[in-house]
């Protein structure tokens, strides 16, 4: 086992543990936005797709790189925008409505 692999596995395991702990008690109204938010985060695969494109040098690898970058870019931009829209809707609905106090 190389040193690189060992440190990669270490990082992976610790990140999994962080992932298990980072969201604790979540109100069920936040489930869908949270799913959408994590969905946007895995759009980080765009980094990998861009790196693949930087070493492409024949027709097949250009096609693969094009599709991979386009897919990942769609995942990133769409993911964050749609999450923001969901949360915007959520906040507006939760804005405190001014209630007239009726006291006898």
């Amino acid at each position: 086992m190389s040193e690189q692999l060992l440190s990669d596995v270490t990082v992976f395991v610790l990140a999994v543990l962080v992932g298990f702990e980072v969201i604790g008690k979540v109100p069920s109204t936040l489930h869908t936005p949270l799913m959408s938010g994590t969905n946007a985060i895995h759009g980080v695969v765009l980094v990998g797709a861009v790196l693949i494109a930087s070493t492409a040098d024949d027709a097949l690898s250009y096609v693969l790189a094009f599709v991979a970058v386009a897919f990942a870019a769609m995942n990133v931009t769409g993911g964050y925008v749609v999450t923001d829209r969901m949360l915007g809707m959520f906040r507006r609905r939760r804005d405190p409505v001014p209630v007239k106090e009726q006291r006898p």
Partner: protein
Amino acid sequence: MSDFDAGVRLVYLAAAVCFVVGLHLMGSPTSARRGNLLSAAGMAAAVLATFAVVAHEGTITNTGTIVLVLALLVGGAAGLVTARRVQMTAMPQLVSLFNAVGGGAAALVALDDFLRLSDGPGVPTRTGVATALDVGIGALTFAGSLVATGKLQGVVTGRPVVFPGARALNAALLLVAVAAGVVVVADDNVPLLLLLLAVGLVLGVTLVLPIGGADMPVVISLLNACTGTVVAMAGFVLENPVLIIAGALVGASGAILTVLMAQAMNRPIRNIVLGGFGGGGSVEVVAS
């Protein structure tokens, strides 16, 4: 390690911190929007740092640059326009669509890397293992998420599609996938990697079709966690820390979220995944 490389690694670390803190903030209604923006800022930093790496290394060809810019414009515009235009009630299927393309992208990244390595210096075992997992599960999430999108959109029937022998077929496909994966790792075998890709795509369809439309949000969350894991595998293939961290983070938090969602719907996860139980396409439940 040069100063430049160290700088890039530090930016990746900062991005990872933004993802973790952002995700944490998203767990509470008052800070959720800020959390998403923080996570987006981390993403922007990671992608910009990667552009700097590409420019610094200078290995990209002119055609490659055109391909990269065009793909960024096409994909970015597609994501932006669909996310802006979509009806509020249609959001879950859009998330599922974004999940599908994310999984597809991760599978293609590993496939491309494998083709290059098997053509030249040969594939090290560690890369082979990560590639087989990435391509197999990536293809599964891609096809599965597309079926989930179709079910919510009404393109595919929302009712559970059950046919005789489905379980046996899935088990057989899984065996084929595992066998192909083992040979891919042992032998740098490109045709079998393509077979693994194909079997993954079929499994994605046959596993999601028997699940009822009402259970789709939980399934999408599960597939989302799968995509996270796949992205982490792509990180192992490319030896890229930010992919490993973000992928593992999404894989684990997505798994927890899947459990929470199933609990909120009072449905045991096992019943959902095995399928055939869920009710018809009551998509309205989803919008909550």
